[in-house]
């Protein structure tokens, strides 16, 4: 968890190799990576760099990734398009 942003990923999505790969690809600031066991890992040092681009929200099943704005009442980021 960052100081300003928290990322939540559902356990199913975090274990799905295709979702893990896609998340690693789409994030422009490198928040997601595949761990040694192939499961999703969040790179804590990059979480506060999140640009709220919404690209991760479109990966996997709806709602499997949540981006929370900790400075705005923990509001989850919603897809605007």
């Amino acid at each position, binding site marked *: 968890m960052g*100081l*300003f942003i928290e990322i939540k990923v559902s356990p199913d999505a975090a274990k799905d190799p295709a979702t893990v790969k896609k998340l690693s690809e789409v994030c422009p*600031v490198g928040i997601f990576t595949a761990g040694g066991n192939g499961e999703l890992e969040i790179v804590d*040092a990059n979480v*506060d*760099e999140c*640009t*709220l681009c919404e690209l991760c929200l479109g990966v996997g099943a709806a709602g499997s990734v949540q981006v929370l*704005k900790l*400075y*705005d009442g923990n509001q989850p980021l919603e897809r605007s398009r």
Partner: protein
Amino acid sequence: MRFYEYESKALLAKHGFPLPKGSKVAHTPAEAEAIAREIGGPLVLKSQVLSGGRMKAGGVLFTETPAEAKAAAETILKLEINGQTARGVLVESKQPIAQEFYLGVTWDGTAKKPVMILSDMGGIDIEEVAEQHPEHIAKRHFSTLMPFADHKAKELVASLGITGSDLNRLTRIVATLARVFQQYDLTLAEINPLGKLEDGSFVAVDGHVDLEAEAKGKHKKLLEELGIGEDETRQARPPTPFEIKGREINEVDHRGVAGNVTEFDGTLGLVIGAGGGSLTLFDAVRKHGGDPANYCEIGGNPSVSKVCNLTKLILSKPGVEKIAVMMNVVSNTRVDLVARGVIKGVIEAGHEPSEKIAIFRIPGSWERDGFKLLEKYGVEYCDRSVSMYEAAGRAVAKMKAA
């Protein structure tokens, strides 16, 4: 980026400006003696430092013989002028000057155009002439959008009442200098004095050229020709450890800019930038009686970590009591990301953002999120309805009240 006199003259010579006979740089007294023997006759030897006041400091000496030139070079090479030792000694023939002129081309920030300045009272500070003899100065602006036209130069020269062959000769010189100014992205091209010899010809007795630092990359070939190394910054003093650290912060992360970190002695740290905003804000802080601890230029959407590290660096400087975070209205830089960076930097430095940040004035892209962040951490902020000048005033007032 300032050029030494011998480099300025090499550039002028490349474009056909006549120089005094000889005009070679010696690095040892023996070299000076050899050059003097080659030139012959009365000589002038000049210390090559990036500073004014050479004559007063004894850095310009006149000699008659090669032996005297050797002794003069020995004196000059040992001499320190405004904290600088000479890179070399320029050895030239002493010219029989009938009249001295001043010719300069520089950038007029108010008019946003280059301006040519000519005076028939050369050899002294142009500021002094402007103050005491304004009727001896002519100025003409010109456009950078169109190729330079000779008639502009002719108008300038003629406006001083110069006629005949002087008008024709000076017109060519002025026009060439204006073109050199444009071609090499100079911020100053100055010949002072521009000497008129007894035979009516003109010679560049002294030359001073400043290249826009940001254009260094564009003019690599010229810099190479003049022997100017890529690492040479030509600043007035070597960078401080604070400034070196600032440069490292900027270079280690390609995202956005947190550059030109310059150290001052004050107590108000500045995180400032955006389209000339840094200069405006720095001046505004001074105008309000504030005492800046640093200058810097942020922009181009720096990453959160870059801003965070810059903030920590500024707060680590002894004597810094608060920081002011101010920019012009931003479009490609995000307000929320800068806000995250400074808040994180302040917290990681062990302080309360509400205490340490005197003011946050960055309106523009993503300001809604930025302002929410600032509200959460109790930081005083303002939007575009508060001018940069007023924001600087608020920061200074807070410093004075503390």
